[in-house]
C-alpha cells in the first residue's frame, strides 16, 4: 500500500515537472522565434527603406543640380557630377499628361552587389538624353537649348565618365564646339582605343551621322533628327541616347512646344492692343495643326519646315513675338 502510494506520488511529480519544463521551453522557443523573426524582418526592412531613401534623395539632388544648366544666351554648357558610390542611373521617360515626366531611378552598389530600388524621382521640366541605364561614379552633363523655332527647353545629355565619344569627320562648327567643351568624354582627337566612334563621313563606325538626311544610325536602328538653322541639339540627343528614350523625350518636347505655341498665340493677340500688327497668328494656328499630327521622330523634318516658315513670318513682323 505504502509502496503503491509512493509510486503514484512519484508519477504525479514527474508529470507535473514535465509540464512545467515543457511550457517554459515552449514559451521561450515561440517567443524567441517570434522576436528573432521580427528583428530580422524589421532590420531588413529598415535597410531596404534606407537604401530607397538614399536613392530618392540622390535622385532628387541630381535633378536640382540640373537646374543651373538652364541656358540663357550661351549655346551649350558642360559640367560634371560625382556620386560617392558606384551608381546605376535608370533614365525613365513618361510621355503621358500635359508635359510628360522625366524620371530617375538610382541603384547603388553595396558590398560589391547592385542593390535595386523601386523609388522613381520625377521632374516635369527636365529632358535627359542618355542610354536607358548608365553606370559609374562620375558623369558628364552636357546641355544645349532646343528651339523650334523659339526656345522650347534645354536638353541634357548624361554621359558616364568611363565612356568616351570620339567624333570623326565632324563639320567644322561641331568640331569647334566639342573642342570648346574641353572635356575628355567627348573628343575629336587623341581618342582612346575603346572609345565609341561617331562618324560623319563613313558608315562603318559605332554611331553614324548623316547630316544630309539628318539621321543617326546605331545598333541597327535609325533615329531621325531635325533643327532650324544651326540648332543641332537633337543630333546630339540621338547620338547619346537609345531609341526608346529618344522617341519618348521627343514626344515630351513636342508636348511642351504645343503649350508654348499656345502662349505665343495668346501673347500675339495681347500685343495687338499695343499696336503691333500680328500677322503671325494664323501661321501659329497652322503650326499647332502640324504639332497635333506629330507621332514620332520621322515627323521632325515636317515640323522643322513649318517652324522655319513661322520663324520667317516672325522676323518679318513689326513686333517680334519671340
Amino acid at each position, binding site marked *: 500500500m505504502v509502496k503503491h502510494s509512493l509510486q503514484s506520488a512519484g508519477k504525479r511529480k514527474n508529470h507535473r515537472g514535465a509540464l512545467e519544463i515543457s511550457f517554459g521551453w515552449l514559451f521561450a522557443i515561440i517567443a524567441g522565434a517570434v522576436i528573432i523573426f521580427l528583428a530580422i524582418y524589421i532590420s531588413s526592412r529598415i535597410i531596404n527603406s534606407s537604401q530607397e531613401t538614399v536613392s530618392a534623395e540622390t535622385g*532628387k539632388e541630381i535633378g536640382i543640380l540640373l537646374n543651373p544648366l538652364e541656358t540663357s544666351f550661351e549655346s551649350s554648357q558642360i559640367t560634371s557630377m560625382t556620386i560617392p558610390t558606384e551608381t546605376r542611373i535608370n533614365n525613365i521617360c513618361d510621355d503621358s499628361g500635359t508635359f510628360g515626366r522625366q524620371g530617375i531611378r538610382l541603384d547603388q552598389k553595396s558590398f560589391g552587389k547592385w542593390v535595386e530600388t523601386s523609388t522613381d524621382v520625377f521632374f516635369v521640366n527636365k529632358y535627359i538624353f542618355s542610354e536607358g541605364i548608365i553606370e559609374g561614379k562620375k558623369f558628364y552633363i552636357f546641355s544645349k537649348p532646343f528651339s523650334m523655332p523659339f526656345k522650347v527647353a534645354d536638353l541634357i545629355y548624361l554621359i558616364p565618365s568611363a565612356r568616351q565619344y570620339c567624333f570623326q569627320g565632324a563639320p567644322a562648327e561641331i568640331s569647334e564646339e566639342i573642342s570648346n567643351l574641353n572635356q575628355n568624354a567627348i573628343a575629336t582627337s587623341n581618342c582612346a582605343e575603346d572609345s565609341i566612334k561617331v562618324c560623319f563621313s563613313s558608315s562603318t563606325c559605332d554611331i553614324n551621322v548623316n547630316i544630309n538626311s539628318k539621321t543617326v544610325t546605331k545598333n541597327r536602328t535609325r533615329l531621325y533628327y531635325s533643327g532650324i538653322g544651326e540648332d543641332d541639339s537633337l543630333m546630339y540627343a540621338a547620338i547619346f541616347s537609345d531609341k526608346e528614350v529618344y522617341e519618348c523625350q521627343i514626344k515630351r518636347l513636342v508636348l511642351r512646344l504645343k503649350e508654348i505655341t499656345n502662349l505665343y498665340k495668346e501673347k500675339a493677340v495681347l500685343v495687338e492692343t499695343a499696336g503691333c500688327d500680328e500677322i503671325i497668328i494664323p501661321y501659329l494656328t497652322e503650326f499647332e495643326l502640324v504639332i497635333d499630327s506629330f507621332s514620332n521622330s520621322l515627323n521632325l523634318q515636317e515640323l522643322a519646315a513649318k517652324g522655319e516658315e513661322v520663324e520667317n513670318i516672325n522676323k518679318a513682323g513689326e513686333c517680334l513675338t519671340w
Partner: protein
Amino acid sequence: MKKKGQIKIQQTIFMIIAVTLLFVLVGLFFLSITLNKLNKEATSLSEKNSLMLVSKLANSPEFSCGDSFGSNRPNCVDFDKIMSLKRNIDSYSELWGVAKIEIRKIYPSTNNASCTNENYPNCNSLKILNKNVKSLPYDSVFIALCRKQASQSGPYDKCELARLMVSSEDRT
C-alpha cells in the same frame, strides 16, 4: 496547484502583451523620428530646388524675352507672355515643382494692384502660380520686366525693374 499554473499563464500572457506594446511603441517612436527626418529632408531639397530654380527661371522659355525686345538678354521676363501664362497656369502647375511664383514691380512702382486681364499693364504684382499649400519664404532675383507699350508713334518696348519670387512647399 491548478490555480497557481493558471496565474503563471496569465502572468506570461500579460508579459507578452506588455513586451509587444513596448515594441510597438518603440517602433512608432522610431517611425515618427524617421518620417520627421524625411519630411525635413524633403523640405530642404525643395528649398534648394527653389533657390536653384529662381536664378534660372527667368531664362526658361515660358518667361524669357527671347529676341522680342532687341537682342537676347539674361534675366529678362516678357510681361505679355507671362499674362498668357497666367491664363493657362492650370497646365503649368506641376512644371517647375514649386508652390508659388510671383512677380513684383520695384521701379517705377505705380500702385499695389494685383494684375488681372482688366487692369493690365497698370498693376504692380502678378501671382503666376499660387498653390494652396504651406510654403517656405520666397527666394527672389531681380529681373527686367518688359512689354510692348502703345504710343502715338507706334508700339515701343517698355522695361521695368522687378523681382521674380519663387517659393517651395513646406512639408514639415
